[in-house]
């Protein structure tokens, strides 16, 4: 398979997600308005206890990153299950293209579409709650953000390959992962509050370290007392996780596809 076909596949599979942003406007309600309600709850708690205004910024940033976690769980990890149900999976698998290209297309499309949603949360949240947003190191901030997303979508690709084998169990597992990660990754508060070992264990989800690093770059003075690890260390771990997840996704996809082919689980029985 040529690189041209690889990239055409990426663009082709990303396309429905790009176009979905413009054609399904309901995301404004479900992905911006509803997350803001939850963010609001935390903002008002912080205000009620007299916490510095930057704490509201923690909550808004966490609310924006939730959009990515939801996207990874429901539109990456569980996606191949939906594709199997709709009959797309078998068409992907008989195409003479790379499965990684299909996953990458899903990731690139999902990432782009989710960025629009996340930007919506930050913009509306910042305006609504008058949150101070002053990025101290713009390039570094952007780099951490990008690396967090690469590692996160790498994890999504890995989960996607694992979930290839399962049917409805994938749906249940996504449900299982959703809420606990909100807590353990510190979406609404600095993760250090959970203690070093819990934070370390939660770091397997790249958003944990990504959020911590982004908060440090956004509110350096305040985060001195709340940071989990230095930004450079978090950056290094994120890079390691990105490589590891993408490598495992590549290997896992082949392994689980072969296994599913032997067990007859790639298509719906009778279809």
């Amino acid at each position, binding site marked *: 398979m040529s690189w041209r076909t690889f990239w055409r596949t990426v*663009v082709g599979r990303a396309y429905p997600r790009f176009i979905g942003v413009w054609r399904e406007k309901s995301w404004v309600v479900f992905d911006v308005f509803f997350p803001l309600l939850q963010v609001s709850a935390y903002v008002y708690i912080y205000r009620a206890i007299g916490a510095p205004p930057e704490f509201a910024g923690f909550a808004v940033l966490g609310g924006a990153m939730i959009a990515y976690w939801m996207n990874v769980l429901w539109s990456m990890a569980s996606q191949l299950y939906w594709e199997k149900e709709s009959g797309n999976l078998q068409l992907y698998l008989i*195409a003479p293209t790379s499965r990684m290209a299909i996953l990458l297309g899903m990731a690139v499309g999902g990432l782009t579409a989710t960025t629009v949603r996340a930007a919506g949360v930050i913009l509306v949240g910042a305006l609504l709650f008058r949150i101070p947003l002053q990025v101290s190191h713009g390039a570094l901030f952007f780099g951490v953000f990008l690396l967090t997303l690469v590692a996160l979508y790498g994890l999504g690709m890995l989960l996607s390959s694992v979930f290839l084998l399962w049917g409805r169990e994938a749906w249940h597992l996504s449900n299982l992962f959703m809420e606990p990660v909100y807590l353990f990754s510190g979406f609404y508060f600095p993760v250090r509050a959970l203690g070093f070992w819990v934070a370390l264990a939660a770091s397997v989800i790249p958003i944990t370290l990504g959020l911590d690093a982004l908060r440090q770059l956004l509110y350096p003075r305040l985060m001195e007392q709340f940071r989990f690890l230095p930004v450079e260390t978090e950056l290094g771990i994120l890079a390691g996780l990105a490589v590891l997840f993408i490598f495992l996704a590549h290997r896992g996809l082949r392994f689980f596809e072969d296994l599913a082919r032997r067990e007859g689980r790639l298509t719906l029985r009778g279809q």
Partner: protein
Amino acid sequence: MAQEALAVKTEELTRVFRLRKREAREGRREILALDRVNLEVPRGELFGLLGPNGAGKTTLIKILATLLAPTSGRAFVAGVDVVANPAEVRRHINMVCGGETSGYGLLTVEENLWMFAQFYGIPSREARRRIRELLSLVGLADRAKTKVYHLSSGMRQKMNIVRGFLTDPEILFLDEPTLGLDVQTARTIREFVRNWLREHPDRTILLTTHYMHEADELCDRVAIIDRGRILACAAPSELKHMLQREAVFRLYVEGVADARAALDGMPGVRALAQEAEDGRLRLDLILAEEGVLVSVLSRLQEAGAKLAELRKEEPTLEDVFLALVGRRLTEGTP
């Protein structure tokens, strides 16, 4: 036949599905979906697999399309082993299934087809040209900009057909392509398939169907499959010729609900199928020779049946199936 001249070849191909505990049927934990299937399909042929639901047709297609591994035996597509080199097989094939709901509802017909073309590395301009051409051939050109979730099932299947042909595959698997479609749409699809093969004589189509008229009308050769085994394989005319010495009758009788007890095991009765129809019992009989009919009628009379109608029929593929399997194609696999 030399391997290069064959589009599809299977050797003792077998597939067993192991059932989970909760799926076990009548204590059986395994289903033998394909039982030592040997097939050779030369390039350029429209080959049909005719059999009831559950006969193993789709299992065979899935193995050939690299979606399912065989339990034992071997299969080659375009001369390539489907287990040893599935990636190479995929360069030669495409597949369309009946009742397929593939694609994304929020994309238009054209966008969906373009997306699938990208997976085959077809440049966008060329893909759009082929899409326009094929949509117009299946009568869907005016729906190119319609979102897929607004299409009827017939239109959707036409789009699926275009998806299958869009990549100009050497070997195309059509799995029940007209399943559940109205007569007009099914006819359009059959015409399209026939014309495409006429224009591309080097291409091969493997079609599964349980519509015998579809197999009869389209296929160069047909394999009759039941319970995972190929029972006969020849041109439709040759298969029907198998029944030439025998006599095929259709009888309508009144006064009995079941004629099997009266006719089963009767000398000269090769096969019998019955079905209630408009308050009467329809009997399809294959007799060793016409003379047996007299004994059949007298046996029915003794059983209390009154003859309402009697027709001598030309043998069809349905009759061939009945003669081979002992039940009608529409009755499914028990």
